[in-house]
């Protein structure tokens, strides 16, 4: 039976709050936020894997083994957390839990989490520059979540609160490609 929307919201909030409390106790709340984001991405980008996690007919031990294998790079506590969600048949809530976790974290610490993707890792100078620039823009402290992505080719990609500033070389080349291929003679395509 489909669950009530308010009930789902409450569940999401509980998951997020419990995880945040545990992460705070370990002093790793931002690290966990980054891992949660990565996990969300893995589940979103692999529909087959998400299907397996949602499969309640699978024995718990087998599912736990699959999760452990898929997320072996991640924190063991995070693997346990995802396993609990999967065992309860609520893995579909992972994106909402991640969003709620970030929302609560940002609210409690009065910060803005900024995802910065670059081709090479950031150095301290650039890190400080980014923090200063976006800190002034948002009027809050900035918590950086750094990602290295060779696909960008150059430049950087900055995301915060569902908005993005994309100034990477790959996007610019892609725009150029689309502009050049978008020539029509006025007939039906």
């Amino acid at each position, binding site marked *: 039976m489909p669950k009530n929307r308010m009930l789902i919201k409450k569940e999401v909030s509980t998951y997020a709050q419990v995880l945040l409390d545990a992460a705070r106790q370990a002093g790793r709340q931002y690290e966990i936020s980054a891992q949660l984001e990565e996990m969300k991405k893995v589940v979103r980008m692999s529909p087959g894997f998400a299907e397996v996690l949602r499969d309640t007919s699978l024995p718990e031990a087998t599912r736990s083994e699959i999760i452990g294998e898929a997320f072996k790079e991640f924190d063991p506590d995070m693997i346990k957390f995802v396993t609990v969600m999967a065992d309860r048949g609520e893995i579909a809530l992972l994106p909402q839990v991640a969003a709620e976790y970030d929302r609560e974290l940002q609210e409690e610490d009065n910060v803005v989490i900024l995802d910065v993707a670059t081709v090479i890792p950031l150095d301290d100078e650039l890190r400080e520059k980014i923090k200063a620039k976006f800190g002034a823009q948002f009027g809050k402290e900035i918590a950086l979540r750094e990602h290295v992505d060779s696909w960008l080719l150059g430049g950087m990609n900055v995301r915060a609160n*569902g908005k993005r500033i*994309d100034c990477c070389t790959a996007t610019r080349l892609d725009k150029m490609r689309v*502009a050049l291929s978008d020539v*029509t*003679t006025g*007939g039906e395509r």
Partner: protein
Amino acid sequence: MAEITASAIDEILRQKLEGLETNVETREFGYVIQIGDGIARVNGLKNAMAGELLEFVASDGRTVYGLAQNLEEDEVGAVLLGDSDAIKENDEVHTTGRVVEVPCGKNFLGRVVNPLGMPLDGKGQIEADGYRPVEFRAPGVIERKPVHEPVQTGLIAIDAMIPIGRGQRELIIGDRQTGKTAIGVDTIINQKGKDMICIYVAIGQKASTVANVVEALEQHGAMEYTIVVSAPASTSAPLQYIAPMAGAAMGEYFMYNGENGEPASATNPGRHVLCVYDDLSKQAVAYRQMSLTLRRPPGREAYPGDVFYLHSRLLERAVKLSDKNGAGSLTALPIIETQGGDVSAYIPTNVISITDGQIFLQTDLFLQGQRPAVNVGISVSRVGGSAQVKAMKQVAGTLRLDLASYRELQAFSQFGSDLDKATQQELNRGARMTELLKQGRYAAMDVEDQVVAIFAGDNGFLDDMPVRDTLRFRDGLVEYMHTVRADLKQRIATEGALNDAIKNELMEAITAFKSSFIIGKK
């Protein structure tokens, strides 16, 4: 086809690269979490607006536009306006901060375009004079003035008894194959030289039918002042849904701007526009499909609850603007197809109640050879009377009632009882007047010719002739007035009414023609 020569390629590529946006901007983004049936559910986009244009970026770099429809707590339900097969789950979506707009302008005249303004006729790109939003607020009471100028359809049955005014919304309703499109197309063809821009919107029709309409318009030189917006049955439901609104937006460009392209005003008059929406039942079906796939609750006949609002806000855009606003007009001729003559179905009743009258076409009349198959008994024009030319009012004032009483008597006469002379006379006159209203396709008549024909019928010139000669007499009389008595026709046109002198001359002219007609027959 527009030609692209080798020398022009370099130039085109340079132009394209010059137009490339190189600045960096902050954009809101989300991801497609589910896609199917031209509907996408998008995660994120917390600031999306209802009706906002969304940009879907396919994995191969192609951009497909969509329309934000359902704004929910965690996601947005959107309909895709382009190639929905290109979009997959996890593709990125951006908000644009704009509502859906269509390009419009003079260069669109003579062209066949899709509801997004892209050309479909292979005649090259169209340079737009501007863009207008597909959804646009209809003008308020203060910005309007009453309908007072006629739209001549060229069809005697309509111009005489169901007159349409500029700025009116007149529904054309009937079963399939009763000549609904024919009335719309004939009206467009008859607008030649009458300072009217025409928009023909084909929704959910066969592409071959649209091609036939375009060919007919081209043959009669009507494409010069016409734009055809085509959303055939093969296009996606969202495109069929926006097609009439896109047509209205293209028409509004001409109404809200003068000849010089500047906004219309008291000194810069706006243009007159005629929009034929063929047909709104198909648009309603497309909207139903969209709404059901968006999981909106179904109502009567499974249409969503706001299908009335969909049609009312479209048809409210038909307007006669006040002099201060340029006095332009947008006349709407929506078409509705009924099933088995059932006008009490959901969509027909809705549109009947919205419009300022309806032209009701009937299958049995069509099969009896009465074309256009207008049932004048239940067809009405609620505001067109004030737009009718005075001469027509004088001759056709009682025509509708006469024909109604003829139909009643006709029913009685079928019992075979003896009829008194007056009844016999009324039946004779009725049969000839009914015959007089018959008209073929693409055979529009000037309003002066219509006045002369009805005048002849009213004054009993047809009474002593066989019914089968009526149409030959009418066409001959029109020809005679064009050639021999062009002066009299001109006077009717300039004076706009029939005074005693004109009436006397008209009687003489028709008598003279009748003598020659009878001699010619012998």
